[in-house]
């Protein structure tokens, strides 16, 4: 008989660390992307914005305070090993962790009942946190956490296209979406795009694609090329950081897909702001775990990238 070490309490503690890390310490890939853009930017307005962004990131990480006052809506994407000992109680553990993190001031209470207008005060409520599960083989729990700001949800777009016009509508739709919302979603953006049979599948996969680190290309070379082509073209818009122009409108473009229906071509488009906040971890059934996302950390004098 195996000794199973992970407890519900242990899980709360791991989720707590993941949420706190995401809210206060930007992922290394996002920091890298912004820093490189700052160094090469020649447009003075854009450079000033990037400078303020980098300062903000460094203050947040050194003082352990939220990067942005809109600390977002909590999303969990989970790959659950079928032999991982805790299953149904994962949701309860995540909610408990959110309550604790909110109470300590690392998250602003952002969960509001749309009918009764009541803010729950602790970032939990009906369907919040939002959780997406994939059941996989093995006995590990892989968790991706993302907290998603309200402003960068505005551009979320679903296009239900005729299959013949699918790719044309996708190309136009992505550009139109970015132009329509301009500075509101706080560019430079990460843009997630997905094709699927149903609208819900397209939107979910587009959102999920934002979890992939900047610079990581799709394993399919054709899709990898599509990501880079779209990224290059989007950056010719010269919308730039907060709309002040320059070379960086998007930090990256991510493409994913599901098989579609012969008659349908659903296109999901989602964006994430420059303050893309996410963390990931692998949790073993014996209770041990590690953070699998890289973040910046304060080393006493400046910020460095630490795994």
């Amino acid at each position, binding site marked *: 008989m195996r000794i199973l070490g992970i407890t519900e309490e242990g899980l709360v503690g791991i989720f707590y660390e993941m949420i706190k890390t995401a809210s206060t310490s930007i992922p290394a890939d996002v920091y890298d992307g912004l820093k490189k853009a700052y160094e090469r930017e020649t447009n*003075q*307005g854009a450079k*000033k*914005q990037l*400078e*303020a*962004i980098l*300062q*903000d*990131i460094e*203050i*947040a990480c050194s*003082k352990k*305070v*939220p*990067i*942005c*006052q*809109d*600390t977002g809506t909590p999303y969990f994407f989970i790959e659950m090993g079928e032999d991982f000992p805790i299953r149904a109680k994962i949701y309860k553990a995540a909610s408990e962790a959110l309550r604790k993190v909110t109470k300590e*001031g690392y998250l*602003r209470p952002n969960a509001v009942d749309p009918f009764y207008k009541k*803010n729950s005060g602790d970032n939990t409520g009906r369907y919040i946190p939002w959780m997406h599960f994939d059941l996989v083989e093995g006995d590990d729990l892989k968790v991706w956490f993302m907290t998603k*700001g309200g*402003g960068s949800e505005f551009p979320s777009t679903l296009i239900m296209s005729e299959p013949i016009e699918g*790719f*044309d509508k996708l*190309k*136009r739709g992505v*550009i*139109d979406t*970015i*132009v329509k919302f*301009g*500075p*509101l979603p*706080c560019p430079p953006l990460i843009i997630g795009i997905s094709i699927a049979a149903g609208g819900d599948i397209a939107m979910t996969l587009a959102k999920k694609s934002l979890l992939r680190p900047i610079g990581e290309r799709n394993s399919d070379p*054709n*899709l990898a*090329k*599509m990501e880079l*082509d*779209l990224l290059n*073209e*989007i950056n*010719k*818009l*010269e*919308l730039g950081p*907060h*709309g*002040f*122009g320059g070379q960086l409108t998007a930090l990256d473009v991510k493409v994913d897909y599901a098989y579609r229906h012969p008659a349908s071509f659903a296109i999901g488009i989602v964006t994430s*702001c*420059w*303050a893309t906040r996410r963390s990931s971890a692998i949790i073993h059934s014996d209770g041990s775990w590690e953070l699998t996302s890289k973040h910046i950390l304060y080393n006493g004098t400046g910020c460095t990238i630490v795994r």
Partner: protein
Amino acid sequence: MVNEYHLSTPLTDDVVKKLKIGDIVYISGIMVTARDEAHETALEILEKGEKLPIDLKGLVLYHCGPVAIKKDNKWQIVAAGPTTSMRMESVEDKFIEKTGIKMVVGKGGMGKKTAEAMKKFNAVYAVFTGGAGALAAERIKEVKDVYWLDKLGVPEAMWVFRVEEFGPLIITIDTEGNNYYEIRLNEVAKNAEKIKESLKEYKWT
């Protein structure tokens, strides 16, 4: 030509008239927050002919809902970046007229109605870097007061901050009614047409 200014409140008409779109400003002095509900509350009071708890003449209005915690009976601002200003577009002209505010700070820009009011009453609109909540909080040195907290809650209440070198603020509407984002977004829309043309050539299937 982009100029950089370091200004103190109260701001006078002469000072704000010098500010042009694209200029960079840092503010020291008093900034007062108001989002949707604080705008409504303030205008209700003013329309009844009553006075606000603070005279806003010459001060800076900030579209912001901060993360604030109370420690040892004193408020501390943890994060305080700007919120989307366009939500206040329908009432900002009245707010400017009735309060004598000289600068509005937010994110994303504002529309024609506000630009006209700014021209008429000598005020400017400036953008603070969206999302930079920790940087903003660092420049807020003291919470002088907070109004309507019980009624509106932390993000919607009217906070009175003493700030030092609050910025960078980029002027995007000036006292001549020039609107930077209007010009900029037209350029972006033009670029978009070219890009959509060239994207037609790409094939990924």
